[in-house]
């Protein structure tokens, strides 16, 4: 599972060789560790107005040193103040006020000046408004332009730095819990492998955790496919963040399921999720043992790859049954139940294959694209009762499954992104944990890619 | 101390004789008799051998209990008393004036009355003599009687009568009986136990009993005496059956066994023990029979009964 190449070129003579040969130079990403500072250096906040103030005060509260660019009191702490100035931990670009394409120039160029000062695994985060068909064409153009800027800038960043954006719906202000929550997520090591992506905050719903290191305190979460790989990482991450986890996997995977369950002090539920009554069983277990259910993570999935020309019904049907139909049936059971409280967060695991397509994976891509459609539709239904439905779409993640890909193919696959490396299961888990939290209650119907800005797809 | 049997001269032995020495002497005598064809005697020695100051050997008794599957209690098993006292009888058989050759004698029956419990630390006196010389269709039989008493007590604690057959030896004046020993048909009952007797069984019992008769020790030594293979000691099988009757028999009882087909080692022997109770349900006796698991030939049968 370890990417030895990344370790090799990250230090010592391996780094020198890679540099001279012009080889990809992935770095070891800054990942979240409880207790570690949110950022490796001060944050440069580009922009002014109430939104910037709201962000500045949040940053300060998080113990981040804030430097301002374009603030009324003017450049008291410019990043180029001295050669000895510490590298920037983040550049935060406040763009929600722009009305015309021309408005982009000043703040974006100012941010550009600071990019060289960005620390390894630093962050660029844009805050802007979501373009919509209701917007004036110029407004829409300016807003949509932000996406191009951010995605391109993300590809220019080096040394593990990432660029991501937060899109605000029309009536959402920057001090909305989910805006602040998303900002913290994108700045932190939790988003290490999220790059070139946007999170859309659609409402002011949500609540920031009293302890940012325990955002899921007291929550009851179900994770399917939790016995190993990404599922086990999700269970561990949710538990670390304070949730009581019900770990679901097929009975045959029970041994590792029990091991993970005991590790995270949760309960194991051996269940084939394609059973007709899987949803009822999950609900019965969660409500029976813990009194309620707050989070459902649909992670279980299988692959049965074949070119479509060679595909048989068994391969096709089993993938659809596990990856999509089971989620639909379970969601239906959950949504149909009275016992469920408000604020259910459903997070599904999609895949970049579902978004971009992948040779030999028509069945898998159908299921994973289907998840996207399901999530958007489910989000609308859940909104009425204060719940959310989102998906994460992992790119190349270092798992037992990808370890089985032939070496050369694997090497190419894991370098085909801006971070020039594969992600870790934990990276996917962190994104899910964020979307499962109440801080993300204003975010629904989103598909968040965890792919290091993979070259394929959207 | 009153004499247990009248009309016999008491011969005091200084200590319990060694069986192996007796066997060596017997072999020597046998050789001499082969050469000299000593005139056959037709009467038994008018002597009763007496050994005083006999005490069980706790180590030997423990080894005996281990081998036979007896619970290690302080009271000596009836079979152990036999091994302790029987050399006195052997010394009678080894006498010059004993009319039958000691070597090659076949143990036909053994009958024990265990009348008073004997503890491992009891001081004992042993008497032994031969009686009832009689004809048998296959030769001549004789009974060797051994009595064991607690020192200073006239009451017999243990009495054993071992019937031996000198095969092919016919003595003048000793009547051959008619065909009274008719063989009854034996069809094996359901076994209650199975013994898997290894080829070491003879050597192991020899080690705890002191009975180093070569026919029990190895197939080589047994072949030297005309046996196909070594055979288990009859008293081993009888003692093991006794042990397996279990605690219901108590400390005192009678124990009779008749030996039939020899147990060639190694062997699988089936055993059936039948407990017979009085009307009130108390144990009266146990009948046992052992047979070859493959051929179904009967090896032994007997009874252990309440006194």
């Amino acid at each position, binding site marked *: 599972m370890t990417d030895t190449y990344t370790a090799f070129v990250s230090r010592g003579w391996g780094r020198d060789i890679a540099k001279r040969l012009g080889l990809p130079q992935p770095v070891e990403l800054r990942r979240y560790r409880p207790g570690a500072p949110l950022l490796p250096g001060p944050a440069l906040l580009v922009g002014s107005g109430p939104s910037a103030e709201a962000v500045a005060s949040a940053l300060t509260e998080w113990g981040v040193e804030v430097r301002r660019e374009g603030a009324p009191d003017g450049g008291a702490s410019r990043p180029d103040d001295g050669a000895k100035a510490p590298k920037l931990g983040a550049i935060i670009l406040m763009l929600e006020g722009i009305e015309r394409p021309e408005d982009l120039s000043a703040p974006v160029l100012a941010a550009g000046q600071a990019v060289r000062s960005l620390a390894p695994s630093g962050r660029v985060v844009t805050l802007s408004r979501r373009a919509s068909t209701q917007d004036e064409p110029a407004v829409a153009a300016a807003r949509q332009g932000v996406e191009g800027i951010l995605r391109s800038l993300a590809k220019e960043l080096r040394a593990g730095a990432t660029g991501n954006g937060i899109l605000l719906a029309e009536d959402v202000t920057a001090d909305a819990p989910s805006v602040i929550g998303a900002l913290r997520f994108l700045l932190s090591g939790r988003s290490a492998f999220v790059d070139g992506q946007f999170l859309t905050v659609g409402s002011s719903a949500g609540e920031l955790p009293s302890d940012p290191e325990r955002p899921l305190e007291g929550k009851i979460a179900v994770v399917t496919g939790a016995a190993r790989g990404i599922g086990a990482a999700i269970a561990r991450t949710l538990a670390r963040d304070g949730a*009581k986890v019900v*770990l679901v996997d097929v*009975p*045959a*995977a*029970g*041994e590792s*399921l*029990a*091991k993970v*369950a*005991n590790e995270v*002090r*949760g*309960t*194991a*539920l*051996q*269940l*084939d999720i394609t*059973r007709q009554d899987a949803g009822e069983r999950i609900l019965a277990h969660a409500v*029976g*043992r*813990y*009194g309620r259910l707050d989070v459902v993570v649909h992670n279980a999935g299988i692959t049965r790859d074949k070119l479509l020309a060679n595909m048989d019904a068994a391969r096709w049907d089993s993938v659809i049954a596990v990856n999509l139909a089971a989620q639909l049936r379970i969601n239906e059971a959950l949504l149909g139940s009275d016992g469920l409280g408000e604020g259910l967060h459903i997070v599904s695991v999609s895949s970049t294959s579902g978004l971009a397509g992948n040779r030999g994976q028509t069945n898998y891509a159908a299921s994973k694209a289907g998840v996207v459609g399901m999530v958007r539709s489910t989000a609308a239904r859940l909104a009425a009762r204060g719940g959310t439905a989102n998906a994460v779409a992992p790119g190349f993640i270092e798992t037992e499954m990808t370890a089985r890909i032939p070496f050369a193919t694997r090497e190419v696959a894991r370098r085909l992104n801006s971070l020039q490396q594969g992600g870790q299961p934990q990276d996917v888990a962190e994104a899910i944990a964020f979307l499962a939290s109440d801080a993300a209650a204003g975010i629904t119907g989103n598909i968040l890619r965890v792919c290091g800005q993979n070259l394929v797809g959207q | 101390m009153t004499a247990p049997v009248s009309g016999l001269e008491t011969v005091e032995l200084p200590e319990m004789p060694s069986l192996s020495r007796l066997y060596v002497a017997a072999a020597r005598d046998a050789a001499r008799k082969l050469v000299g064809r000593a005139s056959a005697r037709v009467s038994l020695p008018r002597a009763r051998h007496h050994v005083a100051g006999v005490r069980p050997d706790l180590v030997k008794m423990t080894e005996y209990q*281990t081998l036979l599957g007896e619970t290690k209690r302080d009271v000596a098993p009836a079979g152990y008393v036999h091994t302790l006292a029987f050399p006195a009888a052997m010394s009678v058989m080894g006498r010059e004036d004993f009319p039958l050759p000691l070597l090659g004698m076949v143990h036909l029956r053994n009958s024990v009355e265990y009348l008073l419990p004997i503890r491992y630390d009891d001081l004992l006196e042993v008497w032994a003599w031969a009686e009832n010389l009689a004809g048998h269709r296959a030769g001549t039989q004789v009974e060797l009687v051994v009595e064991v008493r607690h020192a200073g007590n006239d009451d017999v604690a243990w009495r054993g009568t071992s019937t031996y057959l000198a095969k092919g030896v016919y003595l003048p004046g000793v009547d051959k009986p008619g065909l009274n020993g008719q063989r009854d048909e034996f069809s*094996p009952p*359901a*076994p*209650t*136990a*199975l*013994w*898997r007797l290894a080829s*070491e069984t003879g050597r192991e019992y020899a080690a705890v009993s002191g009975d180093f008769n070569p026919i029990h020790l190895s197939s080589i030594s047994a072949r030297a005496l005309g046996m196909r293979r070594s055979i288990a000691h009859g008293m081993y099988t009888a003692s093991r059956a006794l042990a*397996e*009757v*279990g605690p219901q028999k108590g400390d005192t009882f009678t124990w009779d066994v008749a030996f039939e087909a020899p147990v060639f080692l190694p062997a699988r022997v*089936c055993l*059936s*023990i*039948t*407990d017979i109770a009085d009307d009130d349900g108390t144990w009266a006796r*146990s009948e046992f029979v052992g047979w070859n*698991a493959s051929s179904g030939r009967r090896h032994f049968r007997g009874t252990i009964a309440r006194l």
Partner: protein
Amino acid sequence: MSTLRKAVVVGGNRIPFARANGAYAMTSNQDMLTAALDGLVARFGLQDERIGEAAAGAVLKHSRDFNLTREAVLGSALSPETPAYDVQQACATGLETVLGLADKIKLGRIESAVAGGVDSASDAPIVVSEGLRHAVLELNGAKTVQQKLKALSRLRPKDVTPVAPGTNEPRTGLSMGEHQALTTAQWDISREAQDELALASHRNLADAYGRGFFDDLITPYRGLARDSNLRPDTSMDKLGSLKTVFGRQLGDKATMTAGNSTPLTDGASSVLLASEEWAESRDLPILADVVDGEAAAVDFVHGKDGLLMAPVFAVPRLLGRLGLTFEDIDYFEIHEAFAGTVLCHLAAWEDEEFCRERLGLDGAFGKVDRAKLNVNGSSLAAGHPFAATGGRIVATLAKQLHERGSVGGRPARGLISVCAAGGLGVAAVLEAR
């Protein structure tokens, strides 16, 4: 009884049972018991619970496992502050741990308990001969080289040969199968009847797997997700083609084959027991009440009764005490040591003369409705890791009872009986919650 509180079955967990020298060939009793406990902890979220007491045992046990259950607890996800003790009652070990711990709960001594059992026929203890043992002991005590040489000089080649444990009865030298063959012949049980029972066991177990019944009763182990002895596709023809293995001296009357006898098996099981308050306060399920239990023994040594016939005596005593008859029982879990064992039990309970003379009843005790017998399979199909069987049965029955709920306005009721070496038998009654 009325003053006692209730002891309930919360649930159970076992590892799939593996035929000896199969999937668990290299795992020890402690390994397997630990795995069973870990699965139980995971199922019920007991990671931070100090359990009142854990009791388990093994029939074939290494001397190093003198504290087997406690060691397994320490190696498991259970709280290390959970006290534990070993129980050993041959094949009844598992059921006896349940009954003993349930009594402690009923008396109020403990609030929660884990009962269980494990056995490995693959990792059976091999002991050294008495001769070697004595020589080693003497060698340890020897001080001079001479003494040491003397101790060694006593060794004979055969002393160095290790001794494998047998499943022979110590007092009779007959294997359990040979004993049962005698009883089977005595009760005139046909080969066909035995094969039919074996077939039903395999079918019932396979059906139970098929409907996911074991999803929350079993945690896979070492790549095994199902009992490896299970043959879902077996048939009367296949069973009928097997050669007899026990009672060959009976000739034509020999009926017992590898198909209608249990194989040597490795496996472990566990059951979570609790007071009602404890289970309720933790939102844990309550599957069944442990109502009562009874042990019996028969004098088999000289053949008065068959070695495995003790349950025939235990069951009427138990049901008699509870004022119940077979009519009041909805599920019969009669451990299938051999198909012949179960059928001899049924025959004895139906035999007027036997019931009058040996059980002291007015007439036949009753007839077991075969549709209620071992409905989720039993040892013939699942295998029989001796001490683990009781836990398997208790957890399986408790879940079955809970699913059934009530019968005619009263809780569904199940009877368990387990025969064991040494002429032992233990029976128990559970009631649905």
